[in-house]
């Protein structure tokens, strides 16, 4: 068990982290390539100030809490706080970052980490509840929308249990292994699921750029399908 834990927090973590970084880098590069090369000169028509403004306001989306989505939106927003801060700044994680990559991050107190973890878990359960209980959410949900929430819950729940022996009914080694493996799996999932918005968020508000259609494309499509004498 000890060896498995060592493997999971060492080489497996490094592998998962590497896949995540490379996967996200690929997504960013594709977006940048598409914008720089695909859109080219048309980029000058884009409303850059508006795009930047909206990207910032969506990072702290207080003005986007609208009637009818208050609970879901609040849970979504609050969930992100722990989701971002705990993996980075929990003291045990800070030690891990330093051990693996030599990066020295400030650490948060255990009490704060517990509060954020519980908040995140509560919010994730609320979101899962919406998926199961709200017909509107069920109507648009795919299997990924369900299991991804579970994939987020497991590392947080197991991490909380591992750091609170009094509340943990399982063997510590088992819980820690589950925590490490599920966290590694989550890292791998990031670039292949909607978790990729951790970086694609920066490109979320650029649909106005995508409205800058490619000149001549319409004629070329018509030509390919109907020949050069294509009629309306």
């Amino acid at each position, binding site marked *: 068990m000890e060896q498995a834990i060592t493997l999971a927090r060492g080489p497996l973590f490094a592998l998962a982290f590497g896949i995540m970084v490379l996967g996200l880098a690929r997504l960013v590069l594709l977006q940048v390539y598409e914008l720089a090369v695909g*859109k080219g000169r048309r980029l000058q028509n884009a409303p850059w100030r508006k795009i930047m403004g909206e990207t910032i306001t969506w990072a702290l989306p207080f003005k986007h809490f609208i009637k009818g989505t208050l609970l879901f939106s609040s849970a979504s927003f609050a969930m992100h706080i722990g989701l971002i801060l705990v993996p980075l700044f929990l003291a045990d994680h800070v030690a891990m970052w330093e051990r693996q990559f030599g990066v020295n991050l400030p650490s948060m107190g255990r009490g704060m980490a517990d509060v954020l973890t519980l908040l995140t878990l509560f919010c994730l359960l609320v979101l899962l509840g919406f998926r199961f209980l709200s017909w509107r959410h069920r109507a648009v949900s795919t299997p990924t929308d369900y299991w991804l929430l579970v994939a987020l819950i497991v590392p947080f729940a197991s991490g909380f249990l591992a750091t609170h022996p009094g509340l943990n009914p399982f063997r510590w080694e088992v819980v820690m292994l589950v925590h490490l493996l599920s966290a590694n799996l989550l890292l791998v999932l990031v670039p292949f699921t909607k978790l990729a918005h951790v970086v*694609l968020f920066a490109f979320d508000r650029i*649909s*106005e750029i995508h409205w800058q259609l490619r000149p001549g494309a*319409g004629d070329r*499509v018509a030509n*390919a399908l109907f020949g050069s004498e294509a*009629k*309306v």
Partner: protein
Amino acid sequence: MSAEPVPAAAADATTAPARRYSFHVEEPCEGDRVAKFLEAFAAVLEYTDYKALLDSYCTTSAKCNRCAVTCPVFQVTNDPRDIPCYRTNILLEVYKRYFTIGGWVSSRFKSHFELTDEVIDEFAEVLYRCTACRRCTQECPMGVDHGLMTRLGRYVLSLIGVVPKALQVSVREQLEGETHNTSKVPQKAMLHTLDFLSEEMEDILGVKMDFPVDEPDRDFAFFCAVSDYLMEPDTLMGNAAVLYAAGDWDRWTIGTDNFDGINYGLFYSDWHLENIIKRLLGEVDRLNAGKILIGECGHASRSAHQFVPVFGDRERYPVLNFMEYTYDCLLKGKIELDPSIITERVTYHDPCNIARSGWIVEQPREILRAFVPNFVDMSHAGRRNYCCGGGGGLVSVDEIHDFRMEIGGRVKAEQMRETGAEIVVAPCANCKKQLKELVEHYKLPCKVMGLHDLILKAIVIPGGKSPAERKQEAELYA
């Protein structure tokens, strides 16, 4: 109230062949529609830039349902098909399954999405239940532009012949017909209308104004929705009155080769959108005009403002909406509006195509506040406005009239009623048509008019009759 679009052909179902869609199509797509759809989609992906966007949306779409609560159609129907994410997801599923490696792999291992005739039918139906107002886009935390996805879906469908006949026939006349406009108005009829309007304006305003036609080297080439020549002449006369009062009568012209600002390509086809813009630019070049001045029409303004820089040259062809011009005249003191003429309670409807982006929100309000003492805004005004219910070309599709009234426009009708306004100003030809029908349908105690219809009543015309005198005459005449 029915959640389903009412099939207009229900009455003669015994004699007419069954229709697949709630709108008429010219020639039903026959044969292997799935193969044709995929072939069309493949061609679109090959020659356009949509692939990166689809890849991005496939990855990040959160399916959080915020779009549902913002959609005026879903608010009425509560039908899952009307959730913007549901609609977009059909397109994304097709893309993932048939155009990505992941989709191909997963199709080998598990139960998976398959494009069928039924999916195409549902897709066509839901795409034309959307008014393309893009209200949902504003509230999508992932920035999924459901308006753009609806448009892309419609584009692919149009390539297999699934497009409302009303839109297709209009575009054909504009691009390939003799009149070059969507309402098939011959040049001669347009010139007669202008002569008639000149006489009418002389009667109303007390000054003679001959509309400038095909005048070269003017500052402004003017394009309004062709319906302004036919059904909304007060808007056109209001535009003319502002130009005259501002001393800019010699700075504008109407072209006879292309006088229609409408661009239905915006609603369903990149192909037509670009070619209509090119026709418009051709006319500007023929006239050697400096700027493109678009009349009161939301989608005509947006299509020119957004796509002239894409398909033309931003520096060569600046685009101006007429309300921007009027606002500028007001700021510079070039026109005067009498604040004692309009005593009714007035509200303003924001056309989605000019307000959603924040382009034209305050200008018309500032103009109205300058001469309408009893101006009141609707709830959800400005960028967060509700669509009239006829957006995205739906207003031109007569056979879905019941859908537009009972579903698409219900929220807007309620908004209008809440304001208690006697006049609803809607500076868009499509919105005006839809709102007038809503007023009739819901028996609302108000009338709908363009901004310049109202300005026509209150503008001070140098050397002409005063607004008060004109009002007195109008009341006598009435």
